[in-house]
């Protein structure tokens, strides 16, 4: 008898397997009521993962919004996610930026740190090293604004933890392809 191999399901059952990849999708949509619910509902209904999601209108005249979704799954699952997104009627275009070389991903974070004395000095020194800006300050706290890759933000947040990290607000990833052309 042959040992049963699980079917190559593109769905959540396949998640947690070794060949899980993280991909960033750029989705251009009509900014109409319910469009975000359609996208999010597709992910929950079909058992896909959302690791990060950002959305904003990018062309006001035509009400075009750009959604950036970071998702994880097997390559087959991610291809399936892309096609399922393309089926949604208000969606213009779905691009897997991870498949395009040299796409740029950035995230913005605001990080609140509390502390006095040496801790304040250390926080400012590290902020300087990470090119974080102080956007609010009190006698016993700073709020830093930091833009960069998610890794860089993670790293900065970890460094702030022993110094007196209070809370973090992050935007999630925005991404764009390099070069002169639009997606």
């Amino acid at each position, binding site marked *: 008898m042959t040992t049963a191999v699980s079917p190559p399901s593109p769905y959540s059952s396949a998640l947690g397997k070794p060949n899980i990849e993280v991909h960033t999708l750029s989705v251009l949509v009509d900014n109409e009521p319910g469009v975000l619910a359609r996208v999010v509902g597709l992910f929950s209904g079909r058992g896909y993962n959302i690791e990060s999601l950002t959305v904003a209108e990018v062309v006001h005249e035509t009400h075009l919004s750009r959604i950036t979704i970071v998702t994880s799954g097997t390559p087959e699952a991610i291809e*399936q996610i892309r096609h399922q997104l393309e*089926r949604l*009627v208000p969606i213009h275009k779905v691009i897997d930026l991870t498949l395009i070389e040299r796409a740029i991903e950035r995230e913005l974070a605001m990080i609140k740190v509390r502390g006095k004395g040496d801790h304040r000095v250390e926080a400012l020194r590290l902020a300087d090293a990470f090119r974080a800006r102080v956007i609010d300050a009190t006698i016993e706290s700073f709020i830093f604004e930091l833009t960069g890759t998610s890794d860089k933000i993670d790293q900065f947040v970890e460094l702030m933890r022993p110094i007196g990290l209070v809370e973090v607000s992050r935007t999630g990833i925005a991404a764009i392809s390099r070069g002169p052309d639009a997606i």
Partner: protein
Amino acid sequence: MTKQMTGAEMVVQALKDQGVETLFGYPGGAVLPIYDAIFHQNSVRHVLVRHEQGAAHAAEGFARSTGRVGVLLVTSGPGATNAITGLTDALMDSIPIVCITGQVPTHLIGSDAFQECDTVGITRHCTKHNYLVKRIEDLPRILHEAFYVASSGRPGPVVIDIPKDVQFATGTYSGPRNVQHKTYRPQLKAEAGKLKQALDMMLKARRPVFYTGGGVINSGRVAATLLRELVQLTGFPITSTLMGLGAFPASGKQWLGMLGMHGTFEANNAMHDCDLMIAVGARFDDRITGRLDAFSPGSRKIHVDIDPSSINKNVKVDLGIIGDCAHVLEDLIALWRSSGAAAAQRPVLTPWWQQIETWRSVKSLSFRASETLIKPQYAVQRLYELTKSRDTYITTEVGQHQMWAAQHYHFEEPNRWMTSGGLGTMGYGLPAAIGVQMAHPKALVVDIAGEASILMNMQEMSTAVQYRLPVKIFILNNEYMGMVRQWQELLHGGRYSESYSEALPDFVKLAEAYGAHGIRCTLPGDLDAAIMEMIETPKAVIFDCIVDKTENCFPMIPSGKAHNEMILGDAADVGSVIDEKGKMLV
């Protein structure tokens, strides 16, 4: 054409402009203005159903049997929620329907008003697309767009939720010609390179099989004609899903019968052993594939589908071709003809056909006949023999009777077979038959039913009687939810938990109570005469066909097994065939 009118009048005008002659619905507070507009005109006929689920299935039946968009009109709140099952059914089977729902006035939305529900929220997952119309200016565009979206690409249900104040508001109506959807343009023509690749694969194949589905029927009559031509040209065998029956004639020599869980031995073995599978408008559903990792292990696979997300969803294929079936088939025919190698093809297929004939000789659909009990398969066979020369349309409910109908009723033409495939909705058949009969008033429309399923939408008998629709309900009555009982027998040690149809009504009296005609038949010898009586009765008939209570539906691919592990009717102990993993499956 532009004209000032109210929102309610726009709805009716748009239906006219879209060529809608029949609409199924049920009135209520939030759609009264539209019903008033209906009252003032004669070109759109409204059919009053008895439950909104019935309206949705009737619209589906209408759509499937005509290839046009089916339309229903229901009120807010419970009207909309009752229609959900039908909308989901249409989504799963890719049936084009437009559902217009009333909504509480815009200023009350979100206030938990009487008969308010979040219709667009609830239906987002069970429609291809939906709209909430908040401004009268958007209404004409949305009405026409809805028909376009429902019927283009992979068809499906579309909901238009119209608040009552928008129905009363006055605005400028514009006709369908002025409307073009901003973004939605499904790809119809396939890429030439991929077609060429497909041809090369087809020319090299030694054990090919066509596996076709509902997409061929959705693509239109011309797709079925082209399919027949291509199958004939290539000499390849062909099987079809439940949804695709009729696209290729069952009397054709190359026809292997339906495939899948209750498909024929020859169809499933051909799928398993082929070296080239050509899937056209089919979606590799779990009822078709059985155990995925053992699905047709040695074959290369071509998948033609209008929906890119269908390709590589369940089964990884070697060549995915995105396009409409009719366009792709037409191009493949032209390529095949110009290849010149066509005539040489037949001899190389001879060993394959010989193999298929040995599978065929198993006669997997055979059953033990009885002198005293009506076997359900025999009942369907007799129904087929006595109705095949007529203009007949068949609908079904869901369960054993549905599979027996698919196995033993043979279809020569598309759009003649209406059944709930993807969702498996008990209660589908009677309202669907009403929809079919409205579209084809002179045809013979038979709902092959089970006694359990039919009770789920029995109220629609009133609709049939009201509109003098002579639909025939042919109940294979075994006093059990037969498919549930079969699975309990096979998988749960014969513990028939809640699957016995206790306290059944007397269907003959029930028919009479509705003003229809009732017939009961219990003996095989009486069956033909009783069926003839049913056919010749010029009004709705409930035919209570008392069949063998313990008959099981075979052949069968047990859950979790591969195509070549089918069990035939005389298998001793099916329960022992299915392992623990298989029992987890549905």
